């Protein structure tokens, strides 16, 4: 698992080094998934039951899986999903407006000739 995380992070960083906004976005997707897997791993991997308290019981049964990483990952996925859909829409708009997704060619906000 940790090797998989390492590989994903390496891939993500390779993609970040690109100038294309779309590749950077793919890098972000990869990185956020790598982080989610990392959360799952650090929460200790166990083969367990769903962490629900049974009817008429006060505490959870033995051998359930750790619910907290799942909650954290769900939150992170939701947030990542929202951010990503926004970023994609933004990329599309940027392409429409500027005709390029090359981040080095985007100099509208900081024109080179006017400091």
């Amino acid at each position, binding site marked *: 698992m940790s090797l998989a995380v390492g590989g994903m992070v390496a891939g993500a960083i390779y993609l970040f080094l690109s100038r294309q906004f779309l590749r950077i976005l793919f890098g972000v997707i990869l990185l956020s998934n790598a982080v989610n897997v990392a959360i799952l791993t650090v929460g200790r991997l166990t083969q367990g039951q769903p962490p629900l308290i049974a009817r008429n019981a006060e505490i959870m049964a033995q051998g359930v899986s750790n619910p907290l990483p799942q909650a954290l990952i769900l939150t992170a996925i*939701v947030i990542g999903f929202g951010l990503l*859909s926004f970023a994609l829409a933004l990329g*599309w708009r940027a392409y429409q407006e500027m005709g390029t997704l090359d981040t080095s060619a985007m100099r509208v906000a900081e024109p080179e000739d006017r400091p």
Partner: protein
Amino acid sequence: MMDSLILRTGVRILLPLMLLFSIFILWRGHHEPGGGFVGGLICAVGFALHALAFGIDAMRRVLKADPRTILGAGLLLGILSGFITVPTGEPYMTAQWVGGLGTPVLFDIGVYLVVVGGVLAMVCALMEEGGA
């Protein structure tokens, strides 16, 4: 918008089924795996499929309300469900139970509406931008 007879016919049958299923998941989430988030997603996917098959305007007509209004209403419901603790003096969001039915249900319905509204607002924005 995809002009496909199979998709159109399929969506006609699927949409009510998915709506029912999403409400079932929402209800099941009270005691077992499931809940407002997953239910909301299923419901939103149903409407998104409808938009794919019949176009965004037809989807808006079926939905009746603006997605953003749904989002706001869900958010408000979620916030209000926490305020039920006012008479008891317990902290915000403490669950109150009346015979097996608790305020988390209200919160879950709020989440359901927020997810439906949020996802559909995004779908609308993307489809209108893309000219699909």
